[in-house]
Structure formats: C-alpha cells, structure tokens
C-alpha cells in the first residue's frame, strides 16, 4: 500500500512535470540552466535521503547502500558544479525542481516516522521508485532537451549512474525480503 502510493505519486509528478515546465518557461522543453538545476536538485534529494538512512537504517546492507548513494551523488554534484562553472551557466530554479523538492521533503517526513526494519524497507523501496522516476525524466525529457553537448554527455553519464543505483537498490530490496 505504502509502496504503491509513493509509486503513484512519483508517476503523477513525472507525468505532470512537462506540463509544469511549459507553464514555467513558456517553451516545450526545459532550458540548459533549468536542466542543470533539476539534475543538481535530484542529486541533493538523494544525498538527504541517504543522510537520513545513515542515521535510521538498521540493516548493514541498507547502511552500506546509503553510503554508496552519498558518495556517488556527492561526486556527481561536484562534477555538475564544475561543469556549470566551466560553461558559465547559472542553474535556474523551476517548477520541476520545486515539485521534486516538495515530493522529497514529504517523503523525508514520512520516513522519519518509521524505524527499524520498516524504515529500511520503505527507504529502499523509495530509492527504487525515485531512481526510476529520475531515469525516466533524464531519458525522455532532460537529455533530449539539453542544448550544450557537454551538458548532454554529463546527463548521459548521470543516467548510467542512476540506472546502476536503481539495479543496486533492487538487489538490496530483494535481500530484505
């Protein structure tokens, strides 16, 4: 029930984001400054989720997974900052970033009420759903919309990382069962 609901929210946000972007930028696709902001925000969200898990997780596998997420997403975001600096792009806040952040803070509050095995399960389930959501956005929206070639290639590497995390999360979820 819990998992189904968060997946439904994820799907709703994913489906609604192109519409939100249309309203925000009066264009069909996000601009490079907006894409950079969305990608960075997506990383920050998973870093915050990992920090919460480091404090609350019970199982060794889940703790290790959270550490892997923290390490990778910090490395990705460090690269993102270096890239926007190099390209002289100022990340621009937008409706998709805001929707992602809102969804994430609701999720943090929801997970905060859980503990022990229930937390572990819910955190990992959300990691699977979240990475799936971001992968969908990267593949169908952000990568095709990116104008700058370096930004596009950065996002393509990001997609591979996120796909790896999704599979990793799925393995961890299977071990918890």
């Amino acid at each position: 029930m819990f998992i189904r609901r968060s997946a439904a929210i994820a799907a709703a946000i994913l489906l609604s984001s192109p519409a939100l972007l249309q309203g925000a930028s009066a264009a069909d696709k996000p601009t490079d400054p907006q894409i950079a902001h969305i990608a960075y925000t997506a990383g920050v969200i998973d870093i915050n989720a990992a920090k919460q898990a480091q404090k609350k997780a019970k199982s060794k596998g889940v703790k290790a997974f959270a550490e892997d997420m923290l390490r990778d997403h910090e490395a990705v975001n460090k690269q993102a900052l270096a890239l926007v600096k190099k390209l002289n792009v100022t990340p621009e806040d937008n409706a998709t970033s805001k929707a992602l952040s809102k969804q994430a803070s609701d999720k943090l509050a929801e997970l905060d009420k859980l503990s022990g095995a229930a937390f572990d399960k819910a955190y990992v389930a959300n990691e699977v759903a979240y990475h799936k959501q971001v992968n969908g956005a990267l593949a169908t929206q952000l990568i095709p919309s990116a104008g700058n070639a370096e930004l596009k290639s950065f996002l393509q590497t990001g997609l591979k990382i996120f796909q790896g995390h999704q599979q990793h999360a799925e393995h961890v979820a299977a071990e918890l069962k």
Partner: protein
Amino acid sequence: MMSGRLTSLAIALAVAAMVAPAHAATIEITMENLVISPAEISARVGDTINWINKDVFAHTATAKNGDFDVMLPPKKSATSILKKAGTIEYYCRYHPNMKAMLKVEP
C-alpha cells in the same frame, strides 16, 4: 664440446619455452563513464589484469562465481593475477549495470 654445450642450452631454453607459461602478460581493463572496456577479453592463467578506474566514482570488479572482488576507488587502479581458468562474468557491485566477461584459458 663448446658447441655441444650451446646446443643443450638451446634445447633447454626451447623446452622451457614450451613448458613454462609463455611469458605472462599484463592486460588492461578500463572503467570509464560507467563502461567496462573491453567488454570481453581472453587471458591466460598467470596473466595479470590491470584494472583502471578513470571515473570519479568508486567501482568494483566482482566475479559472479566469487573468483575475485577487486575494489577500485575513484581514479585508482589495481592489479590481480589470474589463478583459475574459466569464463568469468563480472560486474560492479555499486553499479550492477556495468558488466563484462573475462575468458581465462589454462
């Protein structure tokens, strides 16, 4: 006498070359942008694999059959010597979508 010695030395060397594993090689396998290359490669028992991680992310080279599990911190390399023959599928534990194959001949 002299030439006889040389001949036996030559024979000894020739035999050694046939019996001992012909010069162990070092094979480079690179991980870059979450891609392992070459994705498939042949080696021999006794060869050394030089694993090179060019990414800013940590990776592992983990054999599915448990033959090896090499940790590769960001921008680091590591070596391992192949001890057993077989076709080994391996992957990165952190990014299981990174997969490759190593054929180790006896």
